[in-house]
């Protein structure tokens, strides 16, 4: 484990409640300098909420979120809508939160391959162009911690690879910690030091190489993997209902889902399968057909991961 003082951000059993519902609960997470931590999970599983807790945008309703004092953050939000009424060029947007000299603006835009956009209006950018500009703005700040909420949405395939390479490069050159939310298995396997899978709580976690040799990993990246490009598909054995209840695959319902924290006092057993009603360590996952393609896809991913590690 890393030295606690060097940690950029640390969440300890943190959770956020909105009204009566928990958006996410019981998250333990640390990001150290030079480390890439990736959050994955289905829609509504609390990935963005977790990132916002780490950033201090949302205050945890339970648990703690601690950032290193004086931490400089670069943030690429999931959504950014620029109204027509706002005359905002890319140049002006890059110095949104702190003034930047022209030279640094140009350098940052060149790194993300967006230098030709410097005079463009923000509202005219395409989805992929916007992502490059957002990333350029975040790295131009020289951050200690970079938080990327789906950094390649809307970027074409070639651009995606370039951006992921760039993210690894940034980690190496700036030495910053990176907390990234991604749907893309390539990134998860190639660049991450630690992968955390959320489903309203931490469902499973590990390094990519650990995961690739692990049954859990095989379960995690499920049935639909084709042509060497694994499509991320995740079968959870339980569903979170509004009001905080949990419905399991066998149809049983219990009051709470303590996630990783099996010693949680609030996990009331409603059936005989375990202390809190379901297992996180032994996922009852549905592998479907095509087990051979799946296995080869995993090998491709693992090989690619090793390649990236060596190259980086």
């Amino acid at each position, binding site marked *: 484990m890393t030295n606690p003082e060097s940690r950029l951000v640390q969440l300890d059993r943190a959770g956020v409640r909105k009204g009566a519902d928990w958006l996410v609960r019981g998250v333990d997470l640390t990001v150290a300098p030079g480390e890439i931590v990736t959050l994955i999970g289905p829609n509504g599983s609390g990935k963005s909420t977790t990132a*916002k807790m780490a950033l201090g945008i949302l205050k945890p309703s339970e648990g703690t979120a601690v950032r290193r004092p004086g931490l400089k953050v670069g943030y690429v939000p999931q959504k950014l809508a620029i109204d027509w009424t706002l*005359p905002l060029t890319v140049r002006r947007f890059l110095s949104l939160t702190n003034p930047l000299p022209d030279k640094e603006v140009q350098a940052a835009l060149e790194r993300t391959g967006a230098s030709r956009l410097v005079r463009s209006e923000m509202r*005219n950018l395409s989805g992929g162009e916007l992502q490059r500009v957002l990333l350029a703005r975040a790295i131009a700040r020289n951050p200690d911690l970079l938080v990327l909420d789906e950094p390649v949405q809307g970027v074409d395939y070639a651009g995606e690879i370039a951006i992921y390479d760039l993210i690894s490069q940034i980690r190496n050159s700036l030495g910053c910690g990176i907390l990234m939310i991604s749907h893309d298995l390539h990134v998860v396997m190639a660049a991450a030091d630690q992968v955390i899978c959320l489903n309203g709580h931490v469902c499973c976690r590990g390094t990519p190489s650990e995961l690739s040799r692990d049954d859990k990993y095989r379960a995690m990246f499920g049935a639909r993997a084709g042509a060497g490009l694994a499509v991320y598909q995740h079968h959870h054995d339980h569903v979170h209902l509004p009001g905080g209840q949990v419905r399991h695959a066998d149809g049983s319902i219990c009051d709470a889902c303590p996630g990783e924290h099996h010693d949680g006092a609030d996990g009331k057993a409603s059936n005989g399968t375990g202390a809190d009603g379901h297992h996180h360590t032994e996922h009852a996952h549905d592998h479907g057909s095509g087990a051979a393609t799946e296995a080869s896809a995993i090998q491709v991913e693992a090989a690619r991961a090793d390649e990236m590690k060596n190259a980086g």
Partner: protein
Amino acid sequence: MLDDFFTRALVAGIGVALVAGPLGCFVVWRRMAYFGDTLSHSALLGVALSLLFQFNTTVSVGITSILLAVLLLLLRRSDTLSSDALLGLLSHSALALGLVCLAFMTWVRFDLLGLLFGDILAVTKTDIAMIYCGGALVLAVLALVWRRLFAATVSPDLAAAEGLRPERAELVFMLLTAVVIAISLKIIGALLITALLIIPAASARRLSASPEQMAVIAALIGAASVVGGLFASLNYDTPSGPSIVVAAMVLFVLSLVPAGRIVTRMKAGTATRDD
């Protein structure tokens, strides 16, 4: 020079417009037009209270608007009604309460139309001093919080993540709006103050390439509307507020048609992106 009532109105009106322009840009960017309306309707309640307690009207209106803005922030945080419904509730309650209070005070004589639509005859030297001191203060504070307020307007999440505390900037902005409404009441009237915030900013949009530029152009367009409106008001014996708003509207229409084309052509000439 300030002995002439019309000169006083001109000086006061231009002062108001120069402050309302930049602030109005934020009202437009943040989609807070209805918020401006709510505060200006509450101004009537402020006037009633000032008559009741024999207090300076501008100060009384300012305090009422500030209290209303804070009340709105607190109510919004409590997660009950939607922001929109809350604004409507506060806006019309304050307006009605003000009118009822005024009706009760049978011993005071006042000009209700002047209150609602502005009255150039009523501008005093004290008002001018209030407008220029208050206005200078508003512009100074706005310049101070400009970067954070602008960042919070573009993306509250980004501003919060990078340590700019958007909720503070928003509170400051609401207070500034309350002050501007207090100082513009006599010139433009309670019902139409929001127009002086929004219309010049909307006209400036097509003519500007950066937020700072838009703020300056909005201030200039506002001042031009005041001059045009007040001259019309004098010539045709119309109330000053509506005349200023009509002048602003004319400038807005002008900004739409030919200027838009000329700007596009110029931009095409210099080969920058435009649609």
